């Protein structure tokens, strides 16, 4: 217990880094997800194919492989990013594929008449998607989007492997420095729960708030 209290500042910093990773990556991933869902239902064949390829490639590669590949590989292509930036980008690339598939499931719940009506009043495909379909689609998949947020919070721990000192990194450092693994990791566990439990409650409330009844 002393270990946690004595190092509250370290845990605080780690927690803050984890929060930053999670929030930045989720926002980016959400944008990627909207784009991917749009590509996948577009009337243009090559764009649909691009969407499918993205999703299949990203979903079938372990996140850690993507992170390590970006961390050691991208500098060879002249792209030198900080570990934090690399982590945010890769986490959002990975999560974006899952968000895209989730939103696409939501798109399928939007009544066909909505699309036909949007087209009948002269909206283009992009307008139909951004003004009519996507707003309804996202509302119907709030619970899985919340699960993805929590999964992302847990996945930010992988940034430890590319030397970002977030919660997991903080715990590992403290544990090896002091040879007291139990309190060090216990502190990190509590911190993760502080993040994920309110997130679950928040998405639960959001779901009730934006629910579309049909």
């Amino acid at each position, binding site marked *: 217990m002393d270990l946690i209290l004595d190092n509250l500042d370290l845990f605080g910093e780690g927690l803050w880094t984890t929060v930053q990773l999670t929030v930045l990556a989720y926002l980016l991933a959400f944008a990627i997800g909207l784009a991917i869902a749009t590509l*996948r*239902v577009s*009337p*243009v*064949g*090559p*764009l*649909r194919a*691009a969407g499918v390829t993205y999703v299949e490639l990203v*979903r*079938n*590669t*372990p*996140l*850690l*492989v993507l992170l*390590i*590949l970006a961390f*050691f*590989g991208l500098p*060879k*292509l*002249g792209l030198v990013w900080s570990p934090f930036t690399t982590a945010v980008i890769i986490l959002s690339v990975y999560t974006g594929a*899952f968000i895209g*598939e*989730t939103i*696409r*499931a939501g798109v*399928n*719940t939007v009544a*066909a008449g909505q*699309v036909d009506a949007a*087209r009948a009043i002269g909206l283009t495909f992009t307008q139909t998607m951004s003004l009519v379909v996507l707003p309804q689609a996202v509302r*119907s*998949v709030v619970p*899985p989007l919340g*699960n*993805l947020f*929590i999964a992302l919070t*847990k*996945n*930010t*721990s*992988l940034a*430890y*492997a590319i030397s970002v000192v977030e919660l*997991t990194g903080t*715990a*590992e450092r403290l*544990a*090896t420095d002091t*040879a*007291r*693994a*139990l309190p060090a*990791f216990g502190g990190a*566990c509590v911190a*993760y*729960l502080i993040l994920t439990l309110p997130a*679950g409650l928040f998405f639960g409330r959001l779901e009730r708030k934006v629910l579309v009844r049909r």
Partner: protein
Amino acid sequence: MSARAPVIGDPLGPRGRRRALVASVLSALVLAGLIALVVARFADRGQLDRDRWDVLLDPDVLRFLLGGLGHTLELFAVAAAMALPIAVLAALGRLALSRPVRWTAGTYVEVFRALPLLLQILFLYVFLPEAGIHIDPLWVAAIGLALYNGAVMGEIVRAGVLSLERGQSEAARAIGLSYWESMRLVLLPQAARRMIPAGISQMITLLKDTSLAYVVAFEELLRRGRIAGEYARSPLQALLLVAAMYIAVNFTLSRIARRLEVRQRRRYGAGPIAVAGAPEDLSALGTVDGRSDS
């Protein structure tokens, strides 16, 4: 809703089709341009040079990487074999009549599911030697994977049992089966069938998660990819090769999972079960064929 074309809305008219055709050609050109840019970047930095790739295709290096894939599969098999019994125990515990048992199993499932797997594996890696327990990195990773996946799969098993109609357990009790007999003979066999899609999907996640053993210095595929990359002085190429190997294995598995799910739905008319708080792949797999899982 009936099956719809991948494109939303009614079929396009003649003008719409013409526009889509133009857009297709244009977008194909743009996509080809993007790919060309990436290739040019590789070529520019000398990453396409023959000798950078040739060292990797050396039989010894390839054998080394395939050995890594073997270790990955070995870890997967050990972890899955340990996770399954844990999952059934956890589910039975959460469905048990006794309150303390339900509470214990519930705490286990909720805590282990809520914490990052990497944190659990690292904890074991640091804690076990501290506690005087020295075991192989394979087992450190396997225990971590099994504890986490036991909790996740436990929820799948529980959801499978709960998805059965009440009448099943009531009828089983009515013909005089005990609680355990009705579980073993009536409920679990039916639940197992419904669990197949979600279960296989979780197995794919588990296979992907074996890469976390990288951090405990277990020489699975990713770790060996790093080693081979450093040895051959082409880290980018080695890791690309490793990613391709993962994609090949996982893609094949997802295909099998999808086929099993379709066959099962045709045969039993039962869709996949919904697992509350399911991780990424569960929510996503249900949508693969364009069906909503809500």
